[in-house]
């Protein structure tokens, strides 16, 4: 069990001149919940789909549960759960029938009714996708990804379109999966989701990993505080690494009350936007948009 769940080195995926993934290195140990973040077109989905065995890479080494996913076997599929991006409302099987069918493909499948209950679909077990809400369909997809008791599960933008309550329920579900020792690789656009669920976060931009750290580690990267106030009806802001010194000075030179005074420490989102912004400024070609290819 010391072998990592996922190991990537020097991964490249080119579409003609477009370098969707441009030299990616990453190691994810067993049992970790890892969140991959990045703007649309950054190469998230391309990377995940290479790991899932759907896409061929241009170059680099990839090992998922000790196997090159490009030559995925049935036995490897037994150990890997996949939840694709997006969902289809066209199916004609009920939720229970879909899960029952999937359970028949795995050697050590979870109990169908327990799994439906875990994703909160017990009452909708007899419903077909057309009558399920978008969030319910995504939860069915989660059930299908988990039914085979995978050692590793890929969740590609699992909570897009969820209302806040459904998202909270989903987080609880992922926490229980983590409790079973399952490795989770999740892509998301929601910083709070990554912050809440992930042991580590990788931020990817223009096909490269621009940051790889724990949520707390990422947050601590930005030490500049934002101070904002209103001076004579004009909104002012100051970004400083020494907010106390700045405030002392501000208070000394301002008689009376300062309007709308606020000191804000950077959120994970600020760090994220800053990192992405730096990459985008650095990139000579800002129009690279590989996610269109993937979606």
């Amino acid at each position, binding site marked *: 069990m010391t072998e990592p769940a996922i190991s990537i080195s020097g991964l490249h995926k080119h579409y003609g001149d477009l370098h969707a993934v441009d030299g990616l290195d990453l190691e994810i140990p067993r049992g970790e919940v890892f969140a991959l973040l990045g703007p649309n077109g950054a190469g998230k989905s391309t990377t995940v789909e290479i790991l*899932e*065995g*759907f*896409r*061929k890479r241009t170059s680099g080494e990839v090992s998922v549960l000790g196997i090159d996913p490009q030559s995925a076997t*049935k*036995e490897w*599929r*037994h150990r*890997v759960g*996949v939840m*694709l991006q*997006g969902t*289809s409302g*066209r*199916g*004609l*099987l009920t939720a229970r*029938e879909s899960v029952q*069918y*999937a359970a*028949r*493909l*795995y*050697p*050590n*499948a*979870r*109990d169908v009714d*327990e799994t439906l209950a875990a994703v909160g679909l017990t009452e909708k077990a007899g419903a077909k996708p057309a009558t399920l809400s978008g969030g319910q369909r995504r939860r069915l997809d989660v059930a*299908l990804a988990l039914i*085979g008791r995978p050692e590793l599960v890929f969740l590609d933008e699992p909570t897009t379109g969820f209302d806040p309550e459904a998202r909270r329920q989903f987080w609880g579900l992922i926490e229980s999966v983590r409790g079973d020792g399952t490795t989770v690789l999740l892509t998301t656009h929601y910083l709070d989701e990554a912050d809440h669920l992930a042991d580590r976060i990788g931020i990817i931009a223009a096909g490269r990993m621009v940051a790889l750290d724990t949520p707390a580690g990422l947050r601590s990267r930005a030490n500049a505080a934002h101070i904002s106030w209103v001076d004579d009806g004009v909104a002012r802001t100051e970004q400083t690494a020494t907010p106390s010194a700045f405030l002392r000075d501000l208070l000394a030179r301002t008689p009376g009350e300062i309007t709308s005074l606020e000191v804000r420490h950077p959120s994970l989102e600020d760090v994220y936007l800053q990192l992405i912004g730096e990459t985008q400024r650095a990139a000579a070609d800002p129009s690279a948009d590989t996610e269109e*290819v*993937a979606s």
Partner: protein
Amino acid sequence: MTATAAPPTPTWTSMTLARLSVELKEFFRSREQMVFIFLFPMMLLLLFGSVFGGEEIAPGVTFAQYFLAGMVASGILNTGFQSLAMTISIDRDEDVLKRIQGTPLPATSYFAAKVAQVLLVSAVQVAILIAIGVVIYDVTLPSDAGHWGTFAWVFLLGTAAATTLGIAMSTLLRNAKSGSAVITPIVLFLQFTSGVFLVYTQIPTFLQHVAEIFPLKWLAQGMRSVFLPEDFAAAEARGSWELTTGAIVLAAWVVIGLVLAVKTFRWTRHDDN
């Protein structure tokens, strides 16, 4: 959730049967499949049979009887070719195939389940068509093993050709939205030229030659050899049922379909690589 004695690993057969059950449910629950694939030949048989059915096209053979053989052949083409080409290309466009690829289901299980679904649906469909022919249009069923033997191989070869060509066509259709616009004219053209809607010998000779290239003409003629009186063979284009030629052409299309299906098949959309 407690671990019990090692549960059995699913076998190829158990997975194929699980998939077959899904395929059958999806076919019979789909209104499009039921109306346009399953019931359509029966509705046409009743419609054309009641309008033109009484006309004798040869002594002792009515158009309805001739049309029955054509509709049996068409049903096989509908259920194998038309239905598979459409449903698989839609499944590919909607990432259903990609989802299947992400599970342990072997590709051979997927195809075996599709073939078994087509065989079962076609068998039921053909049985109902024949029953309509017997009850309403005085078709006499053959009573000897020879004719039923012919029926069996024509049915199996025809289904095999239609199925493999349907799977191949599903990949050649670059997107599912254009599917019916491409498939329907092909099927209609074949039906008009292969002795289904019109008596084969009454269409222009050059169209007969075009139809001879494709499987439907041989499928329909083979079915006529089963359900029409023996002496009708003299009224066929070459004065015979030409069963050997039919078998060769159908078998050739099975091979062509198989090669195309295997060489071109993909689980993901054409724009997804």
